[in-house]
């Protein structure tokens, strides 16, 4: 099970990195989303995978008899999902505003903050 998930995570990372190497902001954003999901799956798999035994201790017992699912990665994944989702929402808005103002989504052409032919600083008085 873990091996299959590891392969799937590998595919996710490959796609994410390939997309993030693009010059266009919208593809980079797609890459960021897939990267976030790759990390979520990675955390989930890091906690080891078990078949459907929920982490609930039966009433009257102190510890469960059978091996149960690890609840911690699920809590971590939930947190990570919320964070990556809100960041993605912000980045989408930012990219759209930048596209409106700068007229391009090509990072090679986004040179307003760092102009191309900036003059050299003075070397003398």
């Amino acid at each position: 099970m873990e091996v299959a998930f590891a392969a799937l995570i590998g595919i996710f990372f490959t796609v994410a990195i390939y997309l993030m190497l693009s010059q266009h902001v919208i593809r980079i954003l797609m890459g960021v989303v897939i990267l976030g999901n790759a990390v979520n799956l990675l955390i989930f798999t890091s906690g080891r995978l078990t078949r459907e035994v929920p982490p609930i201790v039966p009433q009257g017992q102190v510890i469960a008899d059978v091996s149960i699912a690890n609840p911690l990665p699920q809590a971590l994944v939930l947190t990570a999902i919320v964070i990556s989702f809100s960041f993605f929402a912000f980045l989408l808005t930012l990219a759209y505003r930048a596209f409106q103002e700068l007229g391009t989504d090509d990072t090679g052409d986004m040179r307003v903050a760092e102009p191309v032919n900036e003059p050299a600083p003075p070397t003398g008085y």
Partner: protein
Amino acid sequence: MAETSHAPIDLSVAMITQAPALADWLVVAPIIVCLTGGAFLLTQRKNTALQGWLAMLILALLVAVCAGLLMHVLNNGPIIMTMGRWLPPFGITFAVDILGAVMALVASTVALFCGLYALTEIDEQSQRYGFFPFLILLLGGVCGAFLTGDIFNLYVWFEVLLIASFGLLILGNERPQLDGAVKYALLNLVATTLFLIATAYLYALVGTLNMADIAVRVRMLPEGAPINTIVALYLVAFSMKAAAFPVFFWLPASYHTPRSVVSAVFAGLLTKVGVYALLRIVVMLMPESRSLFADLLAWIAAATLIIGVLGALAQNDIRRTMGYLVISGIGAMLAGAAIASDLGLMGAILYAVHSMIVMTALYLVCGIMIRSAGTHDLRKLGALYGRDPLLAAIFLILALAVSGLPPFSGFWPKLTLVQAALETGYGWLAFAILINGFFTTIVVGRIWVMSFWRGGPATTPDGETIDLTAMPDFPPKQRRALLLPVMGLTVLVIAIGVLPRPFLTITAGGAGGLIFQDGYIEAVLGKTANLQGQGNMTEPHNASGESQ
């Protein structure tokens, strides 16, 4: 509810049964102040007459709380507080040692001065868009990162401060800001995601997120465990957050675009959180793997020192020059982490403190200079001495401090680092630090000569001064209000330079805590925690993982 579950269970094994001592609440007090204060200010967003002063009140309270926390830690050693009643390593722990408390105190002090500056600089519209709530929430993220003892929690604080910094960065909605923010946001998000990836692998390896527990378990790892790979991932992530060579490009792309007070806050706080995380996670928790990467770190440090300052030398825009100076300072701190003797770490911490204060002050001064002269172009600046001699004096002090010349704050950390480098056989690293100081002197000296000393813009003949009344309008009242916080920071710079003893003692304590982790581990896991006997408290997943 059935009453059958009344079997005598000893909860004290796994649960906290007594409320923490009142003084220990100081551990979370900075975060409580920031989060409630930020939320309250958000409701007062439209009340522009009052919210600035309310923010000052909250920031002053934050400084007081952080100072109290540092005193408490200095007197009693590392203190902890665990959430949700679960004993460490199960509950989320906040653990503060000297390093964390010092960084939190300096960060909140710097933020207070920036807040005072912002009262004058930030216009009403930007206040309505939430400058002050963002500032306080950013501080919440920064303090949280300095105080937490849980590695996933550290990630969460990184994200808190990141989202607040986005809000500050695009305040004003100008074209360069949007351009810079795209690069800043994407690269920083990738860096924090990389940090999360490394944390996921670390969890898979050691089965815990509590930092003290990680330190214990990393020592017990079997031969061949891929801990070095994880440390390499952490190094990349934290170098990116700290803006070290070769992953610093988001910083010069964005730091010169926002309001100068926002740049000042960023320069003071954000990159230092990356350095702090590097010291805490790599240097303290995984010392063996760090020594494996020591030479690589030293090379990165030297490259950051040299390339950072060369970048500063090549800039025409004084704000961008300052951005590159921030980067070259990061190189000095990484040099301390590479050496990692107690002297080296002490130098790194002291340099972080110095850099937080000086870089913030320099950005604020640049803001005043740009207002005075109406330009940030080095070719067009000039005659500022005639306009404001006091500002010229302050800039000179800060310039000497950032170059590492006595008797100002930059001298002592550089001296410590050079001495540590020579003692541990890193002579070339000491050379890089000194070369960096030499070039930094040229960079800031050139700015001072060109903008203050000469009589006007580039073509003004020698010995003549342009008509000062022709310069942009800058009411004296406003100028005084902007100068006051800068003067406060300058006093700190001089104080560290002239009376270094308390600062040296405290940062030496912080460095000692990084090298001898047992005090920290004991404080978190309890005095009885036998460092070997921890193995029988294994997480459930270890058993379940093998049963597959």
